[in-house]
């Protein structure tokens, strides 16, 4: 009887108890990485990209590879060896180990791609953010952009390379010359989409400066978009560089890149196919792995996928 009475006793409620949030603290980057590592494919690609990156940075330091010379010009037996246990990738028309050649080329290609992409993205985001934010600037820059964007890249690139001459930094310059503006335009459009959202209006009423608006209100929302761009830029630059090198424009003879190798070995497509296909395979692996890692990271950095 007393037990039943006790059950029907009033309980004092704690008003603040219901304000308390019981879910664990949300950490943006933790969620991003958690989401990223859910994809087995992305993890595999990440490993592959890391492996390729490491080998291409380290291997050429020990290989004494010289694209312009043969280890023994008179020894014909070392030429055109198919892949075997001594020469894992075989040898080329001068008897150079394809293994050495490929990693030396990969090193160049990757370095150029990373450098050019960094410059493009850095410059592009900085300019694009201000461009998109400032309505007056937009009017002028848009006119310039419409003209410049319509000039075909290849034409400009080849012209510039003939003017500047071959060289590592010249090539990077050419690869950045037109691309950064495209990045800037894209960022500008994204910024314009976000710029007039209500929380930005709020910041304006609080007197927030343009710099802070861009860095705290707009750029954080573009993380996903920027990473998507990165994932496309790197493979894109790699292929542009490869194409230019393939055309024989850009790198001096003492520096090799995957594109150059492919352009040299394409003549052996029918006779010694491994000479062609192995550099192509490495090039494709770099592109695909970077792309997939980038895409997965981009999806993971979109907060909508966290909740």
């Amino acid at each position: 009887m007393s037990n039943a009475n006790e059950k029907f006793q009033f309980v004092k409620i704690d008003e603040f108890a219901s304000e308390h949030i019981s879910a664990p603290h949300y950490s943006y980057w933790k969620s991003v990485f958690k989401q990223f590592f859910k994809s087995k494919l992305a993890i595999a690609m990440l490993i592959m990209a890391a492996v390729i990156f490491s080998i291409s940075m380290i291997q050429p330091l020990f290989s004494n590879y010289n694209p312009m010379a043969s280890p023994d010009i008179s020894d014909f037996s070392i030429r055109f060896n198919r892949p075997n246990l001594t020469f894992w990738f075989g040898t080329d028309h001068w008897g150079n180990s394809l293994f050495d050649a490929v990693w030396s080329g990969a090193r160049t290609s990757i370095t150029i791609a990373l450098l050019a992409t960094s410059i493009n993205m850095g410059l592009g985001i900085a300019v694009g953010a201000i461009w998109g934010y400032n309505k007056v600037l937009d009017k002028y820059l848009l006119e310039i952009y419409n003209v410049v964007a319509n000039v075909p890249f290849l034409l400009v690139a080849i012209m510039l390379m003939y003017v500047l001459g071959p060289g590592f930094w010249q090539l990077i310059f050419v690869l950045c010359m037109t691309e950064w503006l495209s990045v800037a335009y894209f960022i500008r459009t994204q910024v314009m989409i976000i710029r007039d959202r209500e929380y930005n209006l709020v910041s304006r009423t609080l007197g927030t400066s343009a710099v802070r608006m861009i860095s705290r209100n707009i750029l954080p929302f573009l993380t996903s978009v920027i990473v998507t761009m990165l994932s496309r830029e790197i493979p894109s630059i790699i292929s542009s560089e490869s194409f230019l090198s393939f055309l024989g424009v850009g790198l001096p003879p003492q520096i090799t890149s995957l594109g150059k190798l492919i352009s040299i070995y394409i003549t052996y497509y029918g006779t010694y196919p491994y000479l062609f296909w192995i550099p192509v395979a490495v090039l494709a692996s770099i592109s695909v792995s970077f792309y997939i890692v980038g895409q997965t990271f981009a999806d993971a950095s979109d907060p909508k996928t966290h909740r």
Partner: protein
Amino acid sequence: MERKVILSARDVVVKFRVRDRVLTAIRKVSLDLYEGETLAIVGESGSGKTVLTKTFTGMLESNGFISEGKIFFEDQDLVQIKNNKAWEKIRGSKIATVFQDPMSSLNPIRTIGTQITEVIIKHQKKNSKEAREIAIDLMDKVGIPNAADRFNEYPFQYSGGMRQRIVIAIALACRPKILICDEPTTALDVTIQAQILELIKNLQKEFGFTTIYITHDLGVVANVAQRVAVMYAGQIVEYGTSHEIFYSPKHPYTWALLSSLPQLGIKGEKLYSIPGTPPSLFYEVKGDAFAQRNPYAMNIDFEEEPPFFMITESHFAKTWLQDPRAPKVELPSAIRDLHATIVKIYGKEGV
């Protein structure tokens, strides 16, 4: 007077898969719908009122599923219908829904006329000429002036209130038995709202369908409903006739809802407000879901889920306060004499 039950939900449980967790949005709901009536389902967001009616039309999102229960309609158990094709015989033609935002219910790139005739042709097997006549007649009935001329216009050429009328016309094109109105006037201005509610009432008299209103606005409920079901945290906690719910409510949540209405506020005094937020339905709820925010909570509310207690033949409340062993609690003063209070504040006719 025996009224026919046209839809009967029994012990329905609906769950959603969200990321790696399961959310129980509806936690055993039973409901009878009588032919020709207007039932209002009231609750705040997250109470499950929209989810419940989506089970009647098979419009649950892809990550939602009915894990238990039955829904009887026209000798069928709607829970058993698994494929979309079977749902098409019911959705739109027997049970139709009017949603809150008319702009997202209408296709912006097709004319108003085709959107109505399309439904008629599909469900009633009429040819386009007959369908057009029926459509224009419908547009007339829902109050579109110059219906024949406006037949070929596009949604953007209509105002918000007009669009909602068209959405209603489309919903009624196939003379459904049940019309579900999910917050149909929340996005509209107050004056237009009054017109739309009036329109639905008149159409109900003429066409003879049964209406379910989903809303959080108690003013709308008072205007349209004959019976009211109050939902909280995935369950119906009280239901009864409109008069019973407004003038003699028995569940503390209903009291809280009524007491917190700004319309009842007295200048200079604080409004009654419900502290806190509803519980997370990712976790199983122990006892009464409203306990944590209930100023009349008792120990037993935290331990056992209360059953429905009968107050009258039409009025039931799911609260331990109705148990004979519970202390007698009076209605909060703010709502004790609701009609008199409102008349005093607003004058006799509400103006």
